[in-house]
């Protein structure tokens, strides 16, 4: 595995590692402690038992005062490898029996640590719990530890009645048995388990770190790197970079909103690019206008002056009149060029669409004539005025006509422009631009477009599982994504973000009786639709109540090369161009933006080698 030192990843791993180390360390510490304590207690217990056994087994020999036998027993016991010494000490502190023969007869000091528990108050205690009688010590520093246990030998009836008469009745303790046991084995065991636990702890920490690093890499480092790569791409100006990662976590959401952001950014940049283009065109036009107007002034002043001076020469007058007239015409052309280039802030005014079309044509008429393009105008003279940005609309028409001329090419053809006043019902054309769920989550999905418009994203939950459906944003058109054909009866339509239900419980579709669902369109009321796809019933009261609306319809068709079917859905996307190196690919997307900004729609129909028709509908009254 390639080790990448990613800051956030290694930090996370470090923190998790330290936490694991601490937890496992503390746990191991207490574990070792309790383990060694229980081991010692076991040794203590067995030492105590051994003492009892020694006392009981020597008892009979004691009564008979068989010292040789006692000695033998003690020696035998003392020979066991784990037992260091076995000693019997009498009341006066003298060692009377010992597994080490040399010790017999020696006196032990009452103040010695091993005796102190009983003899602290000078008067011996008679009974002590096991804990008080044991001691752990090292006889020589650096030698293995040793556990010592002292068991008192109590006076019993049989003792004072024995034939030796060595003890009196008044005595309670006759002496003590002192056994010391080497703890070497126990210590070894404790050490071994300590080692085991430490190895376990280290393995656990390392394993944990690897697991964490694997998942951190998978869930954090990889998507973050992807995001980083994307931001770098955006940084160097590639706004078309899209993060393909479709995970559902926060980073996935971040990636999606990042995609959304870059998309918005690229749209804004496009607008900027366009306005920049217009601005430089404006500067160019201004320069050209100034340069041309000066020589034109020479022509116009001299010719009009001559016209004045030759009033009695009708022959000359006729010719001069032509010069003056044509110069004046040039003046108008330069003026319209200046007006077109001077595209200021968008401002909507009442304007006559026919006039705008005529103005647009006058700008490019010459180009059309050169290319043998015939222009058919069929403008409805009785059109009402409409609130539009005349400059922007002129840009739309000029772009469309230039495109049409390009499509026709050099061989010649016809461009037809017609305008008409039409009445359309809102059903089938109104564009849903905003949609929210009851918890106010945005349902518009900018990433999935249906006929160039961002779709409405819905989630369907049924017994078959969950599915995402992209709903057609045009009221009544039903061009939904083809993921699901028919909804099951138990299906529920929910918000894809919060899964809150969009179903309308108490109502059924008035056409087919299927369940219906709804979502809110901010400031434009409720939008209802049938869950049955084949039915396709929809209701949008706020728009229906406004009734049929009047539109100005502008149709622009050419007899050019046409657009291939697979390209038709994409021509309004930015940077999509069929002109190869010639075009910027901005024209149609800008046109779409302008028409959309006027709450209008633009549609395209085309047939290869027959021609293309663009249909624009502009609403007469402004909607929110």
């Amino acid at each position: 595995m390639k080790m990448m030192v990613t800051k956030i990843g290694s930090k996370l791993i470090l923190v998790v590692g330290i936490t694991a180390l601490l937890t496992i360390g503390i746990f191991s510490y207490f574990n070792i402690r309790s383990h060694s304590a229980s081991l010692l207690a076991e040794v203590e217990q067995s030492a105590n038992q051994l003492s009892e056994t020694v006392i009981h087994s020597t008892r009979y020999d004691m009564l008979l005062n068989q010292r040789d036998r006692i000695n033998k027993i003690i020696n035998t016991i003392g020979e066991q490898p784990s037992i260091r010494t076995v000693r019997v000490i009498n009341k006066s502190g003298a060692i009377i029996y010992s597994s080490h023969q040399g010790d017999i007869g020696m006196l032990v000091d009452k103040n010695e640590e091993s005796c102190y528990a009983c003899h602290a108050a000078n008067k011996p205690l008679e009974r002590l719990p096991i804990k008080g009688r044991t001691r752990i010590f090292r006889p020589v520093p650096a030698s293995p530890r040793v556990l010592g246990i002292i068991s008192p030998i109590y006076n019993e009836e049989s003792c004072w009645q024995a034939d030796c008469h060595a003890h009196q009745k008044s005595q309670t303790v006759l002496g003590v048995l002192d056994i010391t046991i080497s703890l070497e084995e126990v210590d070894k065991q404790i050490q071994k388990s300590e080692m085991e636990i430490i190895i376990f702890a280290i393995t656990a920490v390392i394993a944990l770190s690897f697991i964490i690093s694997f998942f951190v890499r998978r869930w954090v480092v990889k998507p973050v790197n992807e995001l980083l790569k994307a931001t770098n791409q955006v940084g160097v100006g590639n706004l078309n970079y899209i993060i393909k990662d479709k995970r559902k976590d926060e980073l996935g959401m971040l990636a999606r909103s990042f995609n959304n952001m870059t998309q918005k950014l690229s749209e804004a940049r496009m607008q900027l690019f366009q306005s920049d283009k217009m601005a430089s065109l404006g500067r160019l036009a201004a320069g050209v206008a100034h340069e041309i107007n000066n020589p034109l002034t020479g022509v116009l002043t001299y010719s009009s002056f001559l016209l004045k001076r030759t009033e009695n020469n009708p022959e000359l007058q006729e010719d001069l009149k032509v010069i003056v007239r044509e110069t004046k015409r040039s003046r108008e052309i330069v003026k319209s060029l200046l007006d077109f280039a001077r595209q200021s802030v968008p401002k909507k005014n009442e304007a006559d669409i026919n006039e705008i079309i005529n103005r647009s044509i006058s700008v490019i008429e010459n180009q059309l004539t050169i290319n043998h393009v015939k222009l058919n105008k069929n403008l409805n003279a009785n059109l009402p005025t409409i609130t539009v940005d005349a400059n922007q609309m002129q840009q739309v028409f000029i772009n469309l006509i230039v495109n049409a001329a390009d499509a026709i090419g050099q061989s010649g053809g016809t461009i037809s422009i017609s305008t008409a006043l039409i009445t359309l019902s809102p059903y089938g054309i109104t564009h849903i631009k905003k949609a929210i769920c009851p918890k106010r989550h945005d349902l518009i999905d900018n990433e999935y477009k249906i006929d160039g418009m961002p779709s409405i994203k819905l989630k369907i939950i049924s017994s078959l599982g969950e599915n995402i459906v992209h709903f057609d944003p045009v009221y009544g058109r039903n061009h939904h994504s083809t993921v699901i054909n028919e909804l099951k009866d138990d299906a529920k339509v929910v918000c894809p973000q919060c899964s809150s239900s969009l179903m309308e419980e108490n109502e059924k579709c008035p056409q087919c009786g299927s369940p219906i669902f709804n979502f809110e369109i901010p400031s434009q009321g409720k939008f209802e639709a049938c869950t049955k796809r084949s039915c396709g019933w929809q209701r949008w009261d706020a728009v229906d109540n406004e009734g049929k609306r009047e539109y100005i319809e502008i149709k622009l068709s050419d007899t050019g090369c046409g657009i291939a079917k697979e390209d038709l859905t994409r021509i309004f996307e930015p940077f999509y161009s069929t002109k190869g190196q010639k075009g910027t690919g901005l024209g149609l997307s800008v046109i779409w933006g302008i028409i959309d900004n006027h709450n209008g729609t633009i549609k395209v129909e085309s047939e290869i080698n027959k021609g293309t028709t663009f249909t624009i509908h502009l609403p007469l009254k402004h909607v929110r």
Partner: protein
Amino acid sequence: MNKQFDILVIDDEQVIIDALNKICSTEGFRVDSSIEAKEALEKLSRNSYKIIVCDIMMPDVDGFEFLDETIKRKISSPVIMTTGYSTVENSVRSLYNGAIDFIPKPFTADEILNSIIRGLRFSEIQKKISSTSSEKNDSTIIYVPCPAKYFRLGYSSWASEENTGSILIGITDLFLKVVESLEELDLYKIDEEIIQGNQCAALKSKDGLVHNILSPVTGRIIERNEEVLKEINIIEKDPYFNGWLYRVIPSESEYELKQLIPCSSDRF
């Protein structure tokens, strides 16, 4: 040294100087010319001119700087501005800064001649005013200044805001006095768009001259005064009230009115 001229032409294009020289000389005017504004300013300090025709786009000192300089030096000769870059801004700015007329290039002989003739009459009227006020004789009112709440574009047209948001447009009395006797008025049609600083009407005087009226605001014509078309004298009798020309729905009145001269500034 001190020569008397009628017209000073300033333009960086020799062909235009030549053309104007020819046109004006034929009409009997004495024409002096200069190819740059600096030289023209020197000439102004030596000679006197009745009127100046100045181009805007010139190297070094441009037309606006020249205009400011003439006002600073209190040169009484009125200035007519021309330019090949005939934008609304240039037109309105010229008139706001004290030019008496703005003629976009290219112009015909008649267009510039009419403007010059008007300018000469304008300067005569100005002279008359200064002579009458020096004699302290206010009994002869030469022209009626426009009402205080009105705005004017140069000295030719006025605009007045109405309560309803629409704007009335008309011709100032001074302009009418300069034109002298009216014969015919040509107005635009209802629903047509007029643009600030561009032509909005044409006046024909009895001497056969045609005078273009520049619109003080941009907007759509919603009503025009049919009375003045029938009886043109109404304008001369009452230029500020009954003699209005158009009622328009302005598109940017707030901004545009700031580019006009408030008539209240004419009161003293």
